[in-house]
């Protein structure tokens, strides 16, 4: 579905991502793991066009690497950015409605679908998004991206800054989405959780992909365990 080759990004001279290549196939949940500053966010932003990038990105065999950010969603990529990035002064419902902005028409059953996935959001739909709790905001951010009916859902550190109980909830939802056939690219520092829900993963270190493989294998790898799991 998604094919990335030799993708590079630099921020005014400093290299943040260097010739990264990866692939995500239909129905897969693929992880990208790496420490803080490894380049995970940069990788996802390069795919969604919110940073200037070099290299090639193909989505369903169409080259999208030349497109500006606002033309990417039409190709079926939904990006849940790091830090949720809801529109804080708009209601939850308006946030969700804007998620469907790239659709020619908003489907009313899409609301029902995401509300079924996150019942909390339905209760809070009239509330300003900025007043939600961190966990609720993460749910709303995922829900907003789902409104776009993405073929590929990219999640950037969905567990960041959340209480363990909430993290579990979020990850249950992600697992559930994966099982129901969604294609997901998941960037995480929380390596344990990420490898748990993903089938394959890439390991990023200082801007380069240094390893990749089935998540189960990576879970067992001593190097990974030492580097990320502190064991």
């Amino acid at each position, binding site marked *: 579905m998604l094919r990335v080759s030799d993708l590079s990004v630099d921020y005014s001279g400093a290299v943040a991502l260097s010739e990264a290549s990866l692939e995500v196939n239909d129905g897969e949940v693929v992880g990208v793991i790496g420490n803080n500053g490894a380049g995970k966010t940069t990788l996802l932003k390069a795919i969604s066009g919110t940073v200037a990038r070099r290299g090639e990105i193909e989505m369903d065999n169409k080259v999208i690497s030349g497109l500006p950010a*606002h033309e990417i969603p039409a190709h079926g990529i939904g990006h849940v950015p790091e830090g949720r990035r809801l*529109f804080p002064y708009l209601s939850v419902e308006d946030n969700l409605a*804007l998620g469907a*902005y*790239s659709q020619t028409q908003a489907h009313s059953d899409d609301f029902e679908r995401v509300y079924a996935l996150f019942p909390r959001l339905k209760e809070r739909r009239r509330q300003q998004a900025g007043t939600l709790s961190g966990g609720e905001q993460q749910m709303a951010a995922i829900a907003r991206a789902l409104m776009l009916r993405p073929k590929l859902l990219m999640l950037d550190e969905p567990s960041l800054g959340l209480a363990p109980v909430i993290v579990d909830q979020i990850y249950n939802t992600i697992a559930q989405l994966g099982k129901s056939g969604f294609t997901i690219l998941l960037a995480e520092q929380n390596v344990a959780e990420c490898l748990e829900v993903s089938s394959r993963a890439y390991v990023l270190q200082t801007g380069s992909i240094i390893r990749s493989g089935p998540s189960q294998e990576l879970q067992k790898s001593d190097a990974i365990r030492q580097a990320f799991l502190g064991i």
Partner: protein
Amino acid sequence: MEVFAQTIVSGLLLGAVLGLIAVGLTLIFGVVDIVNFAHGEFLMVGMYIAFFAWRLWGVDPLFSIPLAALGVGILGVISYLTFVRHAMRGTLLSQIFVTFGLLIFLRGLAQALFSSNFRGVQGSILGDVGLSVGGVSVPGPQLAAAVGSLIATSAIGWFVWRTRMGKALMATSQDREAAAMLGINPHRMFALAWFIGGIATGVAAALIVSYQPVHPNSGIAYGLPAFMIVALGGFGSIGGALAAAFLVGLIENIAGFYLPTEYKELWIFVLFLIVVIARPQGLLGRR
């Protein structure tokens, strides 16, 4: 008591018009992150449009509202497309001076085309109309301007909070990048903000031209308070701008009456400094 009521009424009438002008300004700032220092000159352009519609074709300013609105709206879009768009990527200095350049340009153009003479609309429909309630007099043109401004402000409010495109505009002002990730074209939103900001100003211009003479510098009297209002209300906050506009209208009239009149405009700037220094995000601002 009557006098006090009169100052309150005058303050509210002025506040409503300032509110419309300031809402246009704050909308542009909120979305585009640029203070349109030429906003008063946009008003001046709108006033000339309405004036000449009356002068050349005998159209009463009340009926040339759409024309002035469209004219200034287009001026906004052109300003954005030609220069502002490029300055946005530059330094703070570029961002400030691009609209200062526009200010100088528009004033010069008005002076070159129409000279520095004061021109006024005579015998407008509302010219002789007026209300007098319990000793408080409300001149027709001012009342129409206030009511018209409130209607226009509400229409803008309806647009930005109730329509899909308006919500996309608000989303862009709150988080440009996140909005782009949903497929909202930021450049289109920037142009839209300038268009609506221009429309608001054009409507206000056609409304006030029935009682305010127009000349190349006629924008300052409204433009300068509008900057203070927008900062007072919190840059980008529509509700804040509206509240601050009424506050400024009231203070100017009340202070003008109870304190030496010649200093009546002074208090706005003093109030502005006090508020902004105590609360840099403005009265209702949230940045």
